[in-house]
């Protein structure tokens, strides 16, 4: 992996529905925070690689053509770029930063993300989300929606494993347990629903109830990354990238099999752990981003953290809650955070770093040394597994 990469600074604004908070308000806030958190000067930033804003064409054009270093006066900036892989965009920004750093193009890179859903005209929002990862010829004319395809995956998973609707609802409970402790969550300080409340929240697309679906919200986050070597000189809390692997499945749900996804989860996870030189037992936090509840038990079973059909029970028993034996999705995934387009993957990376820097407040997992984190894009087109650590094992 050559010199390798480390996160040295993080910034984030609360996820909320706040149309009065503009995209550039958020960009200023997160970039200033991340640079200050890293303890560097703004002119030390030598590259800016931004997560492609989804469904925000004007902002997308502004950022593609260099407005960010201009606004922030990043006088040391040598180049800019935007990366788009939907919900997996942040992973690609990090990969590209790694390449810029290893090649010597840039020593320190800033990676921002912003999404403001609440000021996008409803029609544009629908047009974008109805057709991102849903085929216009073979899926959309039948009335296919994101909730619908995830509902079908959920039903199939429940059928194959015997997982009950109470167990599925308990995944939401577990995610919201973390979210209520997170000042940047849409659900911060809000009452955590019981299983009964999740199941009585009204059916959207059976078997998915309202509380098992996502709320679209606005948010943003940023990372400052550099080489491992420089990170150790700049900060006392570097967060090292230790391993990575990925699998692509398919663009569309109709051409994707639960079994193939399960195998991909398993193989990519083990490859990333092997590269890090770690075993599953050494992972202190599983920071999972799969957007809907069903991915969580599927992943837990696929990677062998419990037997097939047992994950629902495991979530229900509370093992993944704050204080539990298997800290899991410590911002509560998109269900707990509020869905910010391509932003929940950024929020998950920010949280991975925050935990390993010891800055996670009430959610801090004591002595967290190693974190496994994933991202995924589109309707679940791929699975990117990464391993991060406070130290290099």
């Amino acid at each position, binding site marked *: 992996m050559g010199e390798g990469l480390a996160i040295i600074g993080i910034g984030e604004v609360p996820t909320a529905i706040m149309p009065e908070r503009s995209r550039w308000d958020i960009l200023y806030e997160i970039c200033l925070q991340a640079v200050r958190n890293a303890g560097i000067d703004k002119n030390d930033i030598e590259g800016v690689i931004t997560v492609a804003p989804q469904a925000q064409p004007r902002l997308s054009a502004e950022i593609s053509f260099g407005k960010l270093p201009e606004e922030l006066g990043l006088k040391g900036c040598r180049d800019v770029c935007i990366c788009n892989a939907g919900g997996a965009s942040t992973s690609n920004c990090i990969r590209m930063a790694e390449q810029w750093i290893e090649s010597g193009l840039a020593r320190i890179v800033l990676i921002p993300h912003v999404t403001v859903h609440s000021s996008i005209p409803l029609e544009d929002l*629908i047009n974008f989300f109805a057709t991102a990862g849903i*085929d216009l010829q073979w899926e959309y004319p039948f009335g296919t929606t994101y909730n619908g395809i995830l509902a079908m995956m959920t039903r199939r998973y429940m059928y194959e494993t015997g997982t009950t609707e109470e167990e599925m609802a308990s995944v939401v409970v577990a995610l919201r347990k973390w979210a209520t402790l997170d000042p940047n969550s849409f659900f911060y300080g809000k009452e955590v629903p019981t299983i009964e409340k999740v199941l009585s929240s009204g059916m959207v697309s059976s078997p998915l109830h309202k509380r098992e679906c996502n709320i679209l919200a606005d948010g943003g986050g940023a990372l400052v990354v550099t080489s491992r070597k420089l990170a150790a000189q700049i900060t006392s809390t570097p967060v090292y990238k230790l391993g990575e692997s990925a699998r692509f499945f398919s663009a569309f749900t109709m051409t994707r099999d639960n079994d193939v996804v399960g195998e991909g989860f398993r193989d990519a996870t083990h490859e990333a752990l092997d590269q890090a030189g770690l075993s599953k037992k050494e992972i202190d936090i599983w920071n999972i981003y799969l957007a809907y509840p069903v991915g969580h038990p599927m992943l837990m079973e696929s990677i062998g953290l419990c037997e097939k059909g047992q994950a629902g029970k495991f979530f229900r028993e509370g093992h993944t809650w704050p204080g539990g034996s298997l800290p899991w999705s410590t911002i509560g995934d998109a269900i707990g955070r509020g869905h910010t387009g391509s932003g929940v993957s950024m929020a998950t990376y920010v949280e991975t770093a925050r935990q390993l820097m010891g800055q996670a407040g009430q959610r801090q997992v004591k002595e967290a040394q190693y974190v496994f984190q994933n991202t995924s894009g589109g309707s679940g087109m791929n699975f990117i597994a990464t391993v991060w650590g406070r130290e290099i094992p």
Partner: protein
Amino acid sequence: MTSEYIKPIPIIQTWTEQFWKAAKEHKLLIQVCEDCQTRIFYPKKVCPECWSSNLTWEEASGKGKVYSFSVMQDMVEPKFWADIPYVLAMVDLEEGIRLMTRIVACDPEAVEIDMEVEVVFEDITKDCALPFFKPAA
């Protein structure tokens, strides 16, 4: 009927025209590669297995089983509101391919995984029909 249809119509490519032409005549076609005999869904410009351009069509039996489904009840686009509740489904055809479709002509509560179904075409405009499925006779 044509002027009133507000729901999305399939966006057709030159190499999928045959499929939709047949659908209009209430026939369900499967694209087949003449070189490696792969049954291809959804239809492509070249075979996704061997990149051959020797592609042809065979008529499907129209019989299959429900792989999974969802009864859509809320949070769909306004253009689908009139259809609620509707059963969105993935159906595995006997020929070994899976399509996105709807299950119609039965109580949504009666639909089950593995239920045997058969194709039934819904004429949505004068030029286009969608392959839906109903419980097998």
